[in-house]
């Protein structure tokens, strides 16, 4: 017999989007309440890949805990590691050699580009265009190969160590990056042809999921998502770390706050990252790639907080130290978690198709949310 399809007295339909769903990019579980196709409420259920990294870190030494953070936001794992290394360096007052600083920034920006390129493909796939996804992977593969050559890994690099980086740059690095820059520039123009100016894409993203500046701040939304709402919140500009204060780059800010604005901000950031890499690639100072540090790191008693700008927003590392070799408590302020919290606010009143576009434009990475 045909069972009655679940409906409440209000005529609302409750649907599980996820944990396995093509557009949640991982195991995110959203319980959405619909009236027809219109979304009344989005209720995220998290924790499907919660590994309690914060608890794990409490039993790892200050050299060891960095690698775990690659497993949070795996698309900007390098920047996560950077944040952790910065926090330890700040606590121990280690001076990072200039060469290491430049290498770190170069790697950060390459990571940001790789992350945004993948986001571009995934966003296109969310709104139904499949071809851009493959084109995006073509460019991402080149960045990954550059990473692999120097860091030895493609995704979870673990290249940062307190005091610098693990190895020196590979001799081929400069040449390969220089080859990559003009190639990527031409491909960015192709991206514009395929999506940016496409009328269907514009229709799907303009005026969708509008987040005002005040709401963005209140929800603690950071990164490109907040900059699309007109909030200049780039940590690289606010509290420059490493050598960002000596570099010229624009903070891409849009005012509309919709999905298309978020799209434009990320496209702009790819170009900015490219210009940062261009500025640095010929100006890598000679010298050490790592400061001299003790074999066993002991942080002084106290609390330390460092902030970096990942591809998704502000990533904070909060270490509470009791003076031992392991952190007493560690808290990762992951950008995805706060960004996700605004999803309900943004998606209400839109259609299911819009929810997918909004999630795509938020650039959610689920391990980053769950930690």
């Amino acid at each position, binding site marked *: *017999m*045909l*069972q009655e*399809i*679940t409906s409440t007295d209000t005529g609302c*339909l409750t*649907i599980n989007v996820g944990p396995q*769903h*093509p*557009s949640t990019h991982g195991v995110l579980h959203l319980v959405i309440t619909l009236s027809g*196709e219109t979304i009344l409420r989005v209720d995220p259920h998290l924790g499907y890949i919660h590994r309690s990294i914060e608890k794990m870190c409490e039993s790892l030494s200050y050299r060891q805990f960095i690698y775990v953070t690659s497993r949070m936001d795996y698309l900007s794992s390098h920047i996560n590691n950077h944040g952790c290394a910065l926090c330890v360096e700040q606590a121990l007052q280690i001076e990072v050699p200039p060469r290491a600083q430049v290498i770190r920034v170069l790697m950060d920006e390459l990571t940001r580009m790789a992350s945004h390129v993948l986001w571009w493909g995934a966003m*296109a*796939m*969310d*709104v*139904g*265009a*499949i*071809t851009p*996804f*493959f*084109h995006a992977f*073509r460019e991402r593969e080149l960045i990954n190969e550059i990473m692999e050559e120097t860091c030895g890994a493609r995704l979870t690099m673990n290249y940062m160590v307190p005091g610098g980086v693990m190895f020196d740059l590979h001799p081929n690095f400069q040449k390969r990056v220089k080859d990559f820059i003009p190639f990527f520039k031409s491909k960015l123009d192709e991206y514009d042809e*395929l*999506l940016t100016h*496409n009328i*269907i*894409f514009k*229709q*799907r993203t303009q005026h969708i999921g509008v987040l005002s500046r005040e709401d963005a701040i209140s929800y603690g939304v950071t990164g490109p998502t907040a900059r699309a709402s007109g909030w200049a919140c780039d940590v690289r500009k606010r509290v420059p770390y490493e050598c960002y204060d000596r570099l010229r780059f624009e903070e891409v800010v849009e005012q509309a706050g919709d999905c298309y604005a978020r799209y434009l901000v990320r496209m702009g950031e790819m170009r900015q990252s490219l210009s940062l890499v261009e500025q640095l690639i010929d100006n890598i100072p000679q010298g050490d790639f790592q400061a001299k540090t003790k074999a066993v790191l002991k942080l002084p008693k106290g609390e330390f907080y460092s902030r970096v700008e990942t591809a998704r927003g502000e990533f904070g590392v909060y270490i509470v130290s009791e003076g031992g070799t392991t952190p007493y408590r560690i808290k990762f302020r992951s950008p995805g978690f706060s960004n996700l919290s605004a999803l309900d606010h943004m998606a209400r009143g839109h*259609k*299911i*198709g*819009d*929810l*997918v576009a909004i999630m795509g434009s938020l650039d959610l990475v689920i391990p980053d949310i769950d930690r």
Partner: protein
Amino acid sequence: MWSIEQIIGALNQWLQHTLGNVGAAIAAYILLGIFVILFFSVLGLVLVYMERKVSAWMQVRLGPNRVGPKGLLQTLADTLKLMSKEGLTPAGADRFLFNLAPVLMIVVSMLLLAPVAFARNVQIWDLNIGVLYVSAISSVSVLAVLIAGWSSNNKYSLLGAMRSGAQIVSYELSAGFAILTVAVLSGSLQVSQIIESQQTGWWIFRGHLPVWVATVVYLIAVTAETNRAPFDLAEAESELTAGFHTEYSGMKFALFFLAEYANVFIASAIGATLFLGGWMPLHIGNWEAFNRVMDWIPSSIWFLAKTFFLIFVIMWFRWTFPRLRIDQLLELEWKYLLPIGLVNLILATAIAVLGWHF
């Protein structure tokens, strides 16, 4: 030079000779049935392979290249895989309707094959309201989609089916107007006569602006009617996982899959018939030598070439564009395609009445 027309004629004669009139008619129907089933199978294999290659090349990939030479047997392998898979029926599904839907879908596609003219004088049923018949029968497929979505007892399926209902019913109109444009110009609804009217030149060359517009409108409308991207809202992979056929597996899924490609083929075939002259070869004015060469190419090749060109265009749409949203889809229909189609029809009527076409 033998043609399909002659082969069929010879076959018919031989049948009548051996079986008598009644027997020949029965045998002809049986052969026809076998032909349609075979044709569908081959069509599925060819079109799936084509789609995979087209998408692969557009996506800087190689596409299937492992099974058989150049991967030609890939779709055959896939079919075998689908056949050997278990056909699940979800708990709480309406078993009868659930099993009926894919069959209905494929039957509708098969019915649509009737008025398609494959070559000179090769047509299963040349009824005098051919294009109207296509227009009418093709809307029955929405019933299959609705049944599939409803009987699956799955909310995603239901949403997909509801979307599909709104979509197919609306786009039916625009496709109808586009078809009417040509019907007005050629003065007939019969497929063979429409083709005959393009003896001196295909409508896309002779009909100026109205036919160009009608061609574009027709292509958009049939893309929507066959549930293909960018109008694949009923399936909407990134939103509804697989929409109305989420719960189908094995051969039942294969039938939906096959029906989609069959519908694309038929829509393109009708499009080729209406705008590109069906099996009619390309003739240019008084270039006798050129026209002779064109005539030498068999009419079935002409028909298939035009049809596959249109299929390619529809695939090209799919692998380039993002998907529309349901309200935008309806907006496109009611705010753009329908008014344009109407104005276009009036224009075409004026041209037909005044005899301004070439």
